[in-house]
Protein backbone atom coordinates (compact mmCIF):
# COMPACT_ATOMS: atom_id res chain seq x y z
CA UNK A 1 0.00 0.00 0.00
CA UNK A 2 1.30 3.41 -0.89
CA UNK A 3 2.15 5.70 1.99
CA UNK A 4 -0.21 8.43 0.77
CA UNK A 5 -3.14 6.14 1.50
CA UNK A 6 -3.30 7.66 4.98
CA UNK A 7 -4.74 10.75 3.30
CA UNK A 8 -7.84 8.73 2.50
CA UNK A 9 -8.04 7.16 5.96
CA UNK A 10 -10.22 9.73 7.83
CA UNK A 11 -12.97 9.69 5.23
CA UNK A 12 -12.71 5.93 4.75
CA UNK A 13 -13.15 5.34 8.49
CA UNK A 14 -16.01 7.80 8.65
CA UNK A 15 -17.80 6.18 5.71
CA UNK A 16 -17.15 2.68 7.07
CA UNK A 17 -18.70 3.57 10.41
CA UNK A 18 -21.61 5.72 9.26
CA UNK A 19 -22.38 4.52 5.74
CA UNK A 20 -21.11 1.07 4.80
CA UNK A 21 -21.72 -0.68 8.11
CA UNK A 22 -25.30 0.67 8.35
CA UNK A 23 -25.77 -0.22 4.68
CA UNK A 24 -24.91 -3.84 5.39
CA UNK A 25 -27.15 -3.73 8.44
CA UNK A 26 -29.89 -2.28 6.24
CA UNK A 27 -29.39 -4.94 3.59
CA UNK A 28 -29.93 -7.62 6.21
CA UNK A 29 -32.75 -5.83 8.02
CA UNK A 30 -35.35 -7.89 6.18
CA UNK A 31 -34.08 -11.00 7.94
CA UNK A 32 -35.87 -9.79 11.04
CA UNK A 33 -39.60 -10.22 10.78
CA UNK A 34 -40.79 -11.10 7.30
CA UNK A 35 -37.70 -12.91 6.08
CA UNK A 36 -34.82 -11.66 3.96
CA UNK A 37 -35.67 -13.38 0.69
CA UNK A 38 -39.35 -12.59 0.72
CA UNK A 39 -38.58 -8.91 1.48
CA UNK A 40 -36.38 -8.68 -1.64
CA UNK A 41 -38.84 -10.60 -3.78
CA UNK A 42 -41.57 -8.21 -2.74
CA UNK A 43 -39.37 -5.17 -3.36
CA UNK A 44 -38.49 -6.38 -6.83
CA UNK A 45 -41.75 -7.83 -8.06
CA UNK A 46 -44.73 -6.11 -6.48
CA UNK A 47 -46.46 -4.20 -9.35
CA UNK A 48 -47.54 -1.28 -7.16
CA UNK A 49 -43.89 -0.60 -6.32
CA UNK A 50 -42.98 -0.57 -9.99
CA UNK A 51 -45.27 2.44 -10.42
CA UNK A 52 -43.21 4.28 -7.79
CA UNK A 53 -39.91 3.23 -9.37
CA UNK A 54 -40.97 4.21 -12.89
CA UNK A 55 -42.35 7.54 -11.79
CA UNK A 56 -39.11 8.37 -9.97
CA UNK A 57 -37.08 7.24 -12.96
CA UNK A 58 -39.04 9.36 -15.44
CA UNK A 59 -39.23 12.40 -13.17
CA UNK A 60 -35.50 12.30 -12.30
CA UNK A 61 -34.49 11.78 -15.95
CA UNK A 62 -36.65 14.66 -17.14
CA UNK A 63 -35.47 16.92 -14.32
CA UNK A 64 -31.80 16.15 -15.11
CA UNK A 65 -32.27 16.78 -18.83
CA UNK A 66 -34.14 20.04 -18.23
CA UNK A 67 -31.54 21.21 -15.71
CA UNK A 68 -28.74 20.28 -18.15
CA UNK A 69 -30.35 22.17 -21.02
CA UNK A 70 -30.86 25.22 -18.81
CA UNK A 71 -27.44 25.09 -17.14
CA UNK A 72 -25.11 24.50 -20.09
CA UNK A 73 -25.59 27.81 -21.98
CA UNK A 74 -24.94 30.10 -18.98
CA UNK A 75 -22.05 27.87 -17.88
CA UNK A 76 -20.45 28.26 -21.28
CA UNK A 77 -21.17 31.96 -21.28
CA UNK A 78 -19.47 32.29 -17.89
CA UNK A 79 -16.49 30.14 -18.89
CA UNK A 80 -15.78 31.55 -22.34
CA UNK A 81 -17.40 34.92 -22.84
CA UNK A 82 -17.19 36.70 -19.51
CA UNK A 83 -14.29 37.74 -17.35
CA UNK A 84 -13.47 39.13 -13.93
CA UNK A 85 -16.41 40.45 -11.91
CA UNK A 86 -18.97 39.53 -14.55
CA UNK A 87 -17.83 35.90 -14.54
CA UNK A 88 -18.01 35.83 -10.74
CA UNK A 89 -21.49 37.37 -10.79
CA UNK A 90 -22.85 34.81 -13.27
CA UNK A 91 -21.42 31.92 -11.24
CA UNK A 92 -22.69 33.27 -7.92
CA UNK A 93 -26.17 33.99 -9.30
CA UNK A 94 -26.42 30.49 -10.72
CA UNK A 95 -25.43 28.66 -7.55
CA UNK A 96 -27.07 31.05 -5.07
CA UNK A 97 -30.25 28.91 -4.79
CA UNK A 98 -28.10 26.25 -3.11
CA UNK A 99 -27.59 28.53 -0.16
CA UNK A 100 -31.25 28.31 0.76
CA UNK A 101 -32.69 25.19 2.34
CA UNK A 102 -34.52 22.86 -0.02
CA UNK A 103 -37.71 22.89 2.06
CA UNK A 104 -37.97 26.68 1.91
CA UNK A 105 -37.33 26.68 -1.82
CA UNK A 106 -39.87 23.95 -2.43
CA UNK A 107 -42.52 25.82 -0.45
CA UNK A 108 -41.70 29.07 -2.25
CA UNK A 109 -41.92 27.31 -5.60
CA UNK A 110 -45.25 25.79 -4.64
CA UNK A 111 -46.62 29.27 -3.91
CA UNK A 112 -45.13 30.74 -7.08
CA UNK A 113 -46.47 27.93 -9.27
CA UNK A 114 -49.93 28.36 -7.79
CA UNK A 115 -49.73 32.10 -8.59
CA UNK A 116 -49.29 31.22 -12.26
CA UNK A 117 -52.07 28.66 -12.06
CA UNK A 118 -50.01 25.47 -11.76
CA UNK A 119 -51.13 23.21 -8.95
CA UNK A 120 -49.32 20.18 -7.51
CA UNK A 121 -48.88 17.36 -10.03
CA UNK A 122 -46.31 15.60 -12.18
CA UNK A 123 -45.36 18.78 -14.10
CA UNK A 124 -44.89 20.79 -10.93
CA UNK A 125 -42.86 17.96 -9.40
CA UNK A 126 -40.51 17.71 -12.42
CA UNK A 127 -40.15 21.49 -12.47
CA UNK A 128 -39.33 21.42 -8.76
CA UNK A 129 -36.76 18.66 -9.16
CA UNK A 130 -35.10 20.43 -12.10
CA UNK A 131 -35.01 23.62 -10.07
CA UNK A 132 -33.48 21.65 -7.23
CA UNK A 133 -30.57 20.17 -9.22
CA UNK A 134 -29.96 23.15 -11.52
CA UNK A 135 -27.01 24.53 -9.50
CA UNK A 136 -25.36 21.08 -9.53
CA UNK A 137 -25.63 20.86 -13.30
CA UNK A 138 -24.38 24.42 -13.64
CA UNK A 139 -21.28 23.73 -11.55
CA UNK A 140 -20.56 20.56 -13.55
CA UNK A 141 -20.99 22.30 -16.91
CA UNK A 142 -18.96 25.30 -15.79
CA UNK A 143 -16.07 23.16 -14.58
CA UNK A 144 -16.23 21.11 -17.79
CA UNK A 145 -16.02 24.28 -19.89
CA UNK A 146 -13.33 25.77 -17.68
CA UNK A 147 -11.20 22.65 -18.22
CA UNK A 148 -11.69 22.87 -21.99
CA UNK A 149 -9.39 25.61 -23.28
CA UNK A 150 -10.97 28.44 -25.24
CA UNK A 151 -8.58 27.85 -28.12
CA UNK A 152 -10.32 24.50 -28.76
CA UNK A 153 -13.23 26.62 -30.00
CA UNK A 154 -10.90 28.90 -31.95
CA UNK A 155 -9.21 25.90 -33.58
CA UNK A 156 -12.54 24.37 -34.57
CA UNK A 157 -13.80 27.70 -35.94
CA UNK A 158 -10.72 28.36 -38.07
CA UNK A 159 -11.03 24.82 -39.44
CA UNK A 160 -14.47 25.69 -40.78
CA UNK A 161 -16.85 24.71 -37.98
CA UNK A 162 -19.70 27.09 -37.15
CA UNK A 163 -20.47 27.84 -33.50
CA UNK A 164 -22.93 24.94 -33.20
CA UNK A 165 -20.59 22.41 -34.82
CA UNK A 166 -17.69 23.59 -32.67
CA UNK A 167 -19.89 23.03 -29.64
CA UNK A 168 -21.20 19.61 -30.70
CA UNK A 169 -17.96 18.15 -32.07
CA UNK A 170 -15.39 19.61 -29.68
CA UNK A 171 -16.69 21.34 -26.57
CA UNK A 172 -19.44 18.89 -25.69
CA UNK A 173 -17.29 15.72 -25.99
CA UNK A 174 -14.50 17.37 -24.02
CA UNK A 175 -16.91 18.50 -21.31
CA UNK A 176 -18.69 15.14 -21.28
CA UNK A 177 -16.90 13.67 -18.24
CA UNK A 178 -17.90 16.65 -16.10
CA UNK A 179 -21.40 16.84 -17.53
CA UNK A 180 -21.83 13.11 -16.86
CA UNK A 181 -20.68 13.53 -13.27
CA UNK A 182 -23.11 16.42 -12.83
CA UNK A 183 -25.92 14.46 -14.47
CA UNK A 184 -25.26 11.39 -12.30
CA UNK A 185 -25.32 13.39 -9.09
CA UNK A 186 -28.40 15.33 -10.19
CA UNK A 187 -30.20 12.16 -11.21
CA UNK A 188 -29.49 10.37 -7.93
CA UNK A 189 -30.52 13.45 -5.99
CA UNK A 190 -33.77 13.82 -7.92
CA UNK A 191 -34.49 10.09 -7.97
CA UNK A 192 -34.53 9.64 -4.22
CA UNK A 193 -35.76 13.06 -3.16
CA UNK A 194 -38.64 13.14 -0.74
CA UNK A 195 -39.31 16.85 -0.13
CA UNK A 196 -40.18 17.95 -3.67
CA UNK A 197 -42.47 15.01 -4.56
CA UNK A 198 -44.36 15.27 -1.28
CA UNK A 199 -44.84 19.06 -1.59
CA UNK A 200 -45.28 19.47 -5.34
CA UNK A 201 -46.23 16.02 -6.58
CA UNK A 202 -49.82 16.02 -5.34
CA UNK A 203 -51.46 12.70 -6.14
CA UNK A 204 -48.72 11.90 -8.67
CA UNK A 205 -45.98 12.43 -6.12
CA UNK A 206 -45.59 8.75 -5.38
CA UNK A 207 -41.92 8.29 -5.96
CA UNK A 208 -39.23 6.17 -4.33
CA UNK A 209 -38.85 8.71 -1.54
CA UNK A 210 -42.52 8.65 -0.66
CA UNK A 211 -42.66 4.86 -1.05
CA UNK A 212 -40.00 4.50 1.63
CA UNK A 213 -41.83 6.94 3.85
CA UNK A 214 -45.07 5.00 3.44
CA UNK A 215 -43.45 1.60 4.01
CA UNK A 216 -41.32 2.48 6.98
CA UNK A 217 -43.01 5.29 8.84
CA UNK A 218 -46.64 4.63 8.00
CA UNK A 219 -46.66 0.86 7.45
CA UNK A 220 -43.91 -0.10 9.90
CA UNK A 221 -42.58 -2.54 7.27
CA UNK A 222 -38.87 -2.06 7.91
CA UNK A 223 -37.80 -5.25 6.17
CA UNK A 224 -39.38 -4.44 2.80
CA UNK A 225 -38.44 -0.76 3.18
CA UNK A 226 -34.76 -1.61 3.53
CA UNK A 227 -34.96 -4.07 0.64
CA UNK A 228 -36.44 -1.32 -1.57
CA UNK A 229 -33.68 1.08 -0.44
CA UNK A 230 -30.98 -1.47 -1.27
CA UNK A 231 -32.47 -2.33 -4.67
CA UNK A 232 -32.71 1.34 -5.60
CA UNK A 233 -29.18 2.11 -4.35
CA UNK A 234 -27.66 -0.80 -6.28
CA UNK A 235 -29.58 0.11 -9.44
CA UNK A 236 -28.39 3.73 -9.39
CA UNK A 237 -24.81 2.65 -8.63
CA UNK A 238 -24.88 0.25 -11.56
CA UNK A 239 -26.30 2.96 -13.82
CA UNK A 240 -23.66 5.46 -12.74
CA UNK A 241 -20.90 2.88 -13.25
CA UNK A 242 -22.05 2.17 -16.82
CA UNK A 243 -22.27 5.88 -17.61
CA UNK A 244 -18.83 6.64 -16.20
CA UNK A 245 -17.26 3.67 -17.91
CA UNK A 246 -18.52 4.93 -21.23
CA UNK A 247 -17.78 8.61 -20.75
CA UNK A 248 -14.40 8.39 -19.07
CA UNK A 249 -12.90 6.60 -22.01
CA UNK A 250 -12.51 10.15 -23.33
CA UNK A 251 -8.88 11.02 -22.96
CA UNK A 252 -8.58 14.41 -21.30
CA UNK A 253 -4.83 14.78 -21.25
CA UNK A 254 -3.47 17.80 -23.06
Amino acid at each position, binding site marked *: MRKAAFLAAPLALYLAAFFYAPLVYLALEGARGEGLVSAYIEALTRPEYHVFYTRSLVAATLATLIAGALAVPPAFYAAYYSAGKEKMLVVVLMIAPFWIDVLLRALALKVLLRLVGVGPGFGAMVAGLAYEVLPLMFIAAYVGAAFTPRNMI*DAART*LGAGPLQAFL*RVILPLSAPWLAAGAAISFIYAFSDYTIPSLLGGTTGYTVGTLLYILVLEGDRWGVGSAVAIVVTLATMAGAALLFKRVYRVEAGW
Partner: protein
Amino acid sequence: MSGSPVTLVGLWAGYDGEPVLRGVDLEAPGGKITAVLGPSGCGKTTLLKAIAGLVDVMSGHVLFGDRDVTGLPPEKRNVGMVFQDLALFPHMNVYDNVAFGLRVRGVSEGEVRRRVKWALELVGLDPGEFAGRKVTELSGGQRQRVALARALVVEPEVLLMDEPLAHLDYKIRQRLVWELRRLQRRLSATVIYVTHDQWEAMELADKLAVMRDGIVVQSGSPEEVYENPADEFVATFFGDANLVPGELLGVEGGKFIVRPEDVELHPPDWREPIEGFVVEGVIEDRVFQGPMVRFEVRVNGVVLRSLVPRSYASRLPSRGPVKVYIPFASLKRVKVPGGVG
Protein backbone atom coordinates in the same frame (compact mmCIF):
# COMPACT_ATOMS: atom_id res chain seq x y z
CA MET B 1 -2.54 25.72 -53.34
CA SER B 2 -0.96 29.09 -54.21
CA GLY B 3 -2.26 31.44 -51.56
CA SER B 4 -3.74 34.91 -51.79
CA PRO B 5 -1.96 38.05 -50.65
CA VAL B 6 -3.23 39.36 -47.32
CA THR B 7 -3.60 43.08 -46.79
CA LEU B 8 -4.36 44.81 -43.50
CA VAL B 9 -5.49 48.41 -43.75
CA GLY B 10 -5.57 50.66 -40.68
CA LEU B 11 -6.61 47.75 -38.52
CA TRP B 12 -7.81 48.39 -34.97
CA ALA B 13 -8.75 45.24 -33.10
CA GLY B 14 -8.85 43.89 -29.57
CA TYR B 15 -10.91 42.36 -26.81
CA ASP B 16 -13.97 43.73 -25.01
CA GLY B 17 -13.56 47.18 -26.50
CA GLU B 18 -9.89 47.41 -25.51
CA PRO B 19 -7.74 47.82 -28.64
CA VAL B 20 -4.56 45.75 -28.88
CA LEU B 21 -3.88 46.55 -32.53
CA ARG B 22 -3.78 50.30 -33.03
CA GLY B 23 -3.82 50.90 -36.74
CA VAL B 24 -1.86 48.08 -38.35
CA ASP B 25 -0.97 48.38 -42.02
CA LEU B 26 0.62 45.31 -43.58
CA GLU B 27 0.86 43.65 -46.94
CA ALA B 28 1.72 39.96 -46.87
CA PRO B 29 2.53 38.91 -50.44
CA GLY B 30 0.76 35.86 -51.87
CA GLY B 31 2.73 32.62 -51.93
CA LYS B 32 5.42 33.99 -49.61
CA ILE B 33 6.28 33.80 -45.93
CA THR B 34 5.77 36.98 -43.95
CA ALA B 35 7.35 36.80 -40.51
CA VAL B 36 5.90 39.07 -37.83
CA LEU B 37 8.51 39.74 -35.19
CA GLY B 38 8.03 41.53 -31.91
CA PRO B 39 8.37 41.31 -28.14
CA SER B 40 5.73 39.63 -25.95
CA GLY B 41 2.58 41.68 -25.65
CA CYS B 42 3.12 43.70 -28.83
CA GLY B 43 -0.04 42.31 -30.43
CA LYS B 44 1.41 39.59 -32.70
CA THR B 45 -1.09 36.92 -31.68
CA THR B 46 -3.96 39.40 -31.88
CA LEU B 47 -2.82 40.23 -35.42
CA LEU B 48 -3.18 36.58 -36.43
CA LYS B 49 -6.51 36.28 -34.65
CA ALA B 50 -7.77 39.37 -36.48
CA ILE B 51 -6.80 37.76 -39.79
CA ALA B 52 -8.53 34.54 -38.71
CA GLY B 53 -11.64 36.38 -37.51
CA LEU B 54 -11.23 35.45 -33.85
CA VAL B 55 -11.18 38.97 -32.37
CA ASP B 56 -13.37 42.04 -32.69
CA VAL B 57 -12.24 44.39 -35.43
CA MET B 58 -13.02 47.97 -34.40
CA SER B 59 -12.03 49.65 -37.64
CA GLY B 60 -9.96 48.99 -40.73
CA HIS B 61 -10.02 46.11 -43.16
CA VAL B 62 -8.67 42.60 -43.71
CA LEU B 63 -8.37 41.63 -47.38
CA PHE B 64 -7.56 38.23 -48.90
CA GLY B 65 -6.62 39.18 -52.45
CA ASP B 66 -9.50 41.49 -53.47
CA ARG B 67 -11.95 39.85 -51.07
CA ASP B 68 -12.79 41.92 -47.99
CA VAL B 69 -13.20 39.38 -45.18
CA THR B 70 -13.38 41.90 -42.32
CA GLY B 71 -16.95 41.02 -41.32
CA LEU B 72 -16.79 37.28 -41.99
CA PRO B 73 -16.83 34.70 -39.18
CA PRO B 74 -13.72 32.48 -38.98
CA GLU B 75 -15.39 29.45 -40.58
CA LYS B 76 -16.11 31.44 -43.76
CA ARG B 77 -12.55 32.70 -44.25
CA ASN B 78 -10.73 29.54 -45.28
CA VAL B 79 -7.60 30.12 -43.20
CA GLY B 80 -5.39 27.50 -41.61
CA MET B 81 -4.08 28.30 -38.16
CA VAL B 82 -1.40 26.60 -36.12
CA PHE B 83 -1.78 27.75 -32.53
CA GLN B 84 1.04 28.37 -30.10
CA ASP B 85 -0.01 25.40 -27.97
CA LEU B 86 -1.22 23.63 -31.15
CA ALA B 87 -4.79 23.16 -29.82
CA LEU B 88 -5.02 19.61 -31.10
CA PHE B 89 -8.31 17.99 -30.09
CA PRO B 90 -7.36 15.62 -27.25
CA HIS B 91 -10.45 13.43 -27.69
CA MET B 92 -9.58 12.59 -31.30
CA ASN B 93 -6.79 10.52 -32.80
CA VAL B 94 -4.36 11.88 -35.40
CA TYR B 95 -6.61 10.92 -38.32
CA ASP B 96 -9.73 12.55 -36.85
CA ASN B 97 -7.82 15.70 -35.96
CA VAL B 98 -6.58 16.10 -39.51
CA ALA B 99 -9.96 15.10 -40.98
CA PHE B 100 -11.86 17.64 -38.85
CA GLY B 101 -11.74 20.56 -41.29
CA LEU B 102 -12.82 18.32 -44.17
CA ARG B 103 -15.70 16.70 -42.29
CA VAL B 104 -17.22 19.99 -41.13
CA ARG B 105 -17.14 21.01 -44.81
CA GLY B 106 -19.15 17.92 -45.67
CA VAL B 107 -16.41 16.24 -47.73
CA SER B 108 -17.18 12.56 -48.46
CA GLU B 109 -15.33 9.99 -46.32
CA GLY B 110 -13.50 8.56 -49.34
CA GLU B 111 -12.16 12.00 -50.22
CA VAL B 112 -11.38 12.65 -46.53
CA ARG B 113 -9.23 9.49 -46.46
CA ARG B 114 -7.33 10.51 -49.56
CA ARG B 115 -6.71 14.08 -48.40
CA VAL B 116 -5.71 13.11 -44.83
CA LYS B 117 -3.17 10.66 -46.26
CA TRP B 118 -1.83 13.39 -48.53
CA ALA B 119 -1.54 15.88 -45.64
CA LEU B 120 0.16 13.43 -43.27
CA GLU B 121 2.69 12.46 -45.95
CA LEU B 122 3.26 16.14 -46.70
CA VAL B 123 4.38 16.83 -43.14
CA GLY B 124 6.49 13.68 -42.98
CA LEU B 125 4.23 11.42 -40.91
CA ASP B 126 3.64 7.88 -42.18
CA PRO B 127 -0.19 7.56 -42.34
CA GLY B 128 -0.03 3.82 -41.64
CA GLU B 129 1.91 4.38 -38.45
CA PHE B 130 0.34 7.58 -37.13
CA ALA B 131 -3.29 7.81 -38.30
CA GLY B 132 -4.67 5.78 -35.39
CA ARG B 133 -2.41 7.19 -32.68
CA LYS B 134 -3.73 9.35 -29.87
CA VAL B 135 -2.40 12.89 -30.12
CA THR B 136 -1.58 12.77 -26.40
CA GLU B 137 0.96 10.00 -27.08
CA LEU B 138 3.00 11.93 -29.63
CA SER B 139 6.28 13.79 -29.13
CA GLY B 140 6.38 17.58 -29.39
CA GLY B 141 7.71 17.50 -32.94
CA GLN B 142 5.11 14.96 -34.06
CA ARG B 143 2.27 16.98 -32.53
CA GLN B 144 3.62 20.00 -34.35
CA ARG B 145 3.42 18.09 -37.64
CA VAL B 146 -0.15 16.96 -36.93
CA ALA B 147 -1.17 20.56 -36.26
CA LEU B 148 0.41 21.62 -39.53
CA ALA B 149 -1.28 18.80 -41.45
CA ARG B 150 -4.63 19.69 -39.88
CA ALA B 151 -4.25 23.30 -41.00
CA LEU B 152 -3.00 22.45 -44.51
CA VAL B 153 -5.46 19.68 -45.38
CA VAL B 154 -8.23 22.19 -46.16
CA GLU B 155 -5.91 24.01 -48.61
CA PRO B 156 -6.31 27.37 -46.89
CA GLU B 157 -5.87 30.70 -48.65
CA VAL B 158 -3.50 31.73 -45.92
CA LEU B 159 -1.65 29.74 -43.27
CA LEU B 160 -1.31 31.51 -39.92
CA MET B 161 1.33 30.25 -37.50
CA ASP B 162 1.56 31.55 -33.93
CA GLU B 163 5.00 30.78 -32.50
CA PRO B 164 4.40 27.11 -33.29
CA LEU B 165 7.91 26.02 -32.38
CA ALA B 166 8.32 27.97 -29.15
CA HIS B 167 8.14 24.90 -26.93
CA LEU B 168 10.50 22.65 -28.86
CA ASP B 169 14.18 21.87 -28.39
CA TYR B 170 16.61 23.88 -30.46
CA LYS B 171 17.58 20.96 -32.75
CA ILE B 172 14.00 19.95 -33.54
CA ARG B 173 13.07 23.58 -34.05
CA GLN B 174 15.88 24.02 -36.52
CA ARG B 175 14.85 20.95 -38.52
CA LEU B 176 11.18 21.95 -38.56
CA VAL B 177 11.99 25.49 -39.67
CA TRP B 178 13.98 24.16 -42.62
CA GLU B 179 11.23 21.67 -43.49
CA LEU B 180 8.56 24.34 -43.20
CA ARG B 181 10.45 26.55 -45.61
CA ARG B 182 10.76 23.74 -48.16
CA LEU B 183 7.10 22.82 -47.74
CA GLN B 184 5.97 26.41 -48.23
CA ARG B 185 8.03 26.70 -51.42
CA ARG B 186 6.49 23.48 -52.73
CA LEU B 187 2.90 24.59 -52.02
CA SER B 188 3.36 28.31 -52.79
CA ALA B 189 1.29 28.93 -49.69
CA THR B 190 0.83 32.37 -48.17
CA VAL B 191 2.20 32.05 -44.66
CA ILE B 192 2.08 34.60 -41.87
CA TYR B 193 4.45 33.42 -39.18
CA VAL B 194 4.51 35.11 -35.80
CA THR B 195 7.59 34.79 -33.62
CA HIS B 196 9.68 36.59 -31.06
CA ASP B 197 12.72 34.66 -32.23
CA GLN B 198 14.84 36.59 -34.71
CA TRP B 199 16.64 33.47 -35.87
CA GLU B 200 13.33 31.88 -36.97
CA ALA B 201 12.30 35.16 -38.59
CA MET B 202 15.53 35.37 -40.58
CA GLU B 203 15.39 31.71 -41.62
CA LEU B 204 11.81 31.88 -42.85
CA ALA B 205 10.91 35.37 -43.90
CA ASP B 206 10.56 36.55 -47.48
CA LYS B 207 9.12 39.61 -45.85
CA LEU B 208 9.62 40.79 -42.29
CA ALA B 209 7.29 42.97 -40.23
CA VAL B 210 8.48 44.26 -36.86
CA MET B 211 5.75 45.04 -34.36
CA ARG B 212 5.71 47.12 -31.23
CA ASP B 213 2.83 48.33 -29.04
CA GLY B 214 0.12 47.25 -31.48
CA ILE B 215 1.52 48.69 -34.69
CA VAL B 216 3.90 47.52 -37.42
CA VAL B 217 6.89 49.82 -37.03
CA GLN B 218 8.79 48.58 -40.08
CA SER B 219 8.39 46.03 -42.83
CA GLY B 220 10.48 44.93 -45.76
CA SER B 221 12.82 42.13 -46.72
CA PRO B 222 14.88 40.91 -43.76
CA GLU B 223 17.98 42.40 -45.37
CA GLU B 224 16.37 45.81 -45.88
CA VAL B 225 15.23 45.92 -42.28
CA TYR B 226 18.60 44.74 -41.01
CA GLU B 227 20.56 47.21 -43.13
CA ASN B 228 18.26 50.17 -42.53
CA PRO B 229 16.42 49.77 -39.23
CA ALA B 230 13.76 52.46 -38.84
CA ASP B 231 14.71 53.26 -35.30
CA GLU B 232 16.61 52.20 -32.21
CA PHE B 233 13.93 49.64 -31.26
CA VAL B 234 14.04 47.85 -34.61
CA ALA B 235 17.83 47.97 -34.66
CA THR B 236 18.15 46.31 -31.28
CA PHE B 237 15.22 43.88 -31.64
CA PHE B 238 16.16 42.54 -35.06
CA GLY B 239 19.84 41.77 -34.72
CA ASP B 240 22.22 43.20 -32.18
CA ALA B 241 23.31 46.83 -32.40
CA ASN B 242 25.77 49.18 -30.72
CA LEU B 243 24.38 52.60 -29.95
CA VAL B 244 27.24 55.03 -30.39
CA PRO B 245 26.89 58.60 -29.10
CA GLY B 246 27.79 61.21 -31.73
CA GLU B 247 30.41 62.75 -29.41
CA LEU B 248 32.49 59.58 -29.64
CA LEU B 249 32.71 60.05 -33.39
CA GLY B 250 33.36 63.77 -33.14
CA VAL B 251 29.83 64.70 -34.28
CA GLU B 252 27.46 67.05 -32.43
CA GLY B 253 24.72 65.14 -30.55
CA GLY B 254 22.57 62.26 -31.72
CA LYS B 255 23.24 58.55 -31.71
CA PHE B 256 24.46 56.12 -34.33
CA ILE B 257 23.76 52.44 -34.82
CA VAL B 258 26.60 50.08 -35.65
CA ARG B 259 26.14 46.33 -36.02
CA PRO B 260 28.73 44.41 -33.97
CA GLU B 261 30.10 42.68 -37.09
CA ASP B 262 30.88 46.13 -38.50
CA VAL B 263 33.04 47.04 -35.54
CA GLU B 264 36.41 45.76 -36.75
CA LEU B 265 39.17 45.04 -34.27
CA HIS B 266 42.84 45.00 -35.25
CA PRO B 267 46.17 44.62 -33.49
CA PRO B 268 47.54 47.95 -32.16
CA ASP B 269 50.17 48.21 -34.95
CA TRP B 270 47.55 47.82 -37.70
CA ARG B 271 47.85 50.23 -40.68
CA GLU B 272 44.90 52.64 -40.81
CA PRO B 273 42.41 52.62 -43.68
CA ILE B 274 41.32 55.78 -45.45
CA GLU B 275 37.49 55.83 -45.14
CA GLY B 276 36.36 55.28 -41.59
CA PHE B 277 36.52 56.01 -37.97
CA VAL B 278 39.60 54.68 -36.19
CA VAL B 279 40.27 54.89 -32.49
CA GLU B 280 42.22 53.17 -29.72
CA GLY B 281 40.22 50.83 -27.47
CA VAL B 282 40.74 48.27 -24.73
CA ILE B 283 39.37 44.72 -24.94
CA GLU B 284 37.52 43.92 -21.71
CA ASP B 285 35.92 40.58 -22.53
CA ARG B 286 36.02 37.81 -25.12
CA VAL B 287 33.21 35.27 -25.67
CA PHE B 288 33.60 32.34 -28.04
CA GLN B 289 30.41 31.83 -30.10
CA GLY B 290 31.41 29.18 -32.64
CA PRO B 291 31.89 30.77 -36.07
CA MET B 292 32.33 34.20 -34.50
CA VAL B 293 33.98 35.58 -31.37
CA ARG B 294 32.33 38.46 -29.53
CA PHE B 295 34.57 41.08 -27.95
CA GLU B 296 33.61 43.86 -25.57
CA VAL B 297 35.78 46.87 -26.18
CA ARG B 298 35.88 50.11 -24.15
CA VAL B 299 36.35 53.18 -26.29
CA ASN B 300 36.44 56.56 -24.49
CA GLY B 301 34.16 55.26 -21.74
CA VAL B 302 31.69 53.56 -24.13
CA VAL B 303 31.56 49.75 -24.35
CA LEU B 304 31.11 48.45 -27.92
CA ARG B 305 30.35 44.87 -28.93
CA SER B 306 32.31 43.53 -31.84
CA LEU B 307 31.83 40.26 -33.74
CA VAL B 308 35.00 38.96 -35.28
CA PRO B 309 35.34 35.82 -37.45
CA ARG B 310 36.98 33.01 -35.48
CA SER B 311 39.94 32.85 -37.87
CA TYR B 312 40.78 36.53 -37.36
CA ALA B 313 40.07 36.57 -33.62
CA SER B 314 43.14 34.41 -32.99
CA ARG B 315 45.30 37.39 -33.95
CA LEU B 316 43.77 39.52 -31.21
CA PRO B 317 44.58 39.49 -27.51
CA SER B 318 41.95 38.41 -24.99
CA ARG B 319 42.47 41.59 -23.00
CA GLY B 320 44.27 44.87 -23.54
CA PRO B 321 44.75 47.57 -26.20
CA VAL B 322 43.33 47.17 -29.68
CA LYS B 323 42.61 49.35 -32.68
CA VAL B 324 38.88 49.83 -33.45
CA TYR B 325 37.79 50.59 -37.00
CA ILE B 326 34.23 51.42 -38.07
CA PRO B 327 33.69 52.12 -41.81
CA PHE B 328 31.64 55.30 -42.32
CA ALA B 329 29.13 53.33 -44.42
CA SER B 330 28.24 51.17 -41.41
CA LEU B 331 27.19 54.11 -39.26
CA LYS B 332 23.44 54.77 -39.32
CA ARG B 333 22.01 57.80 -37.56
CA VAL B 334 19.28 56.71 -35.15
CA LYS B 335 15.75 57.96 -35.16
CA VAL B 336 14.60 57.89 -31.56
CA PRO B 337 10.87 57.08 -31.48
CA GLY B 338 9.06 60.27 -30.60
CA GLY B 339 12.31 62.22 -30.32
CA VAL B 340 14.49 64.26 -32.64
CA GLY B 341 16.67 62.12 -34.90
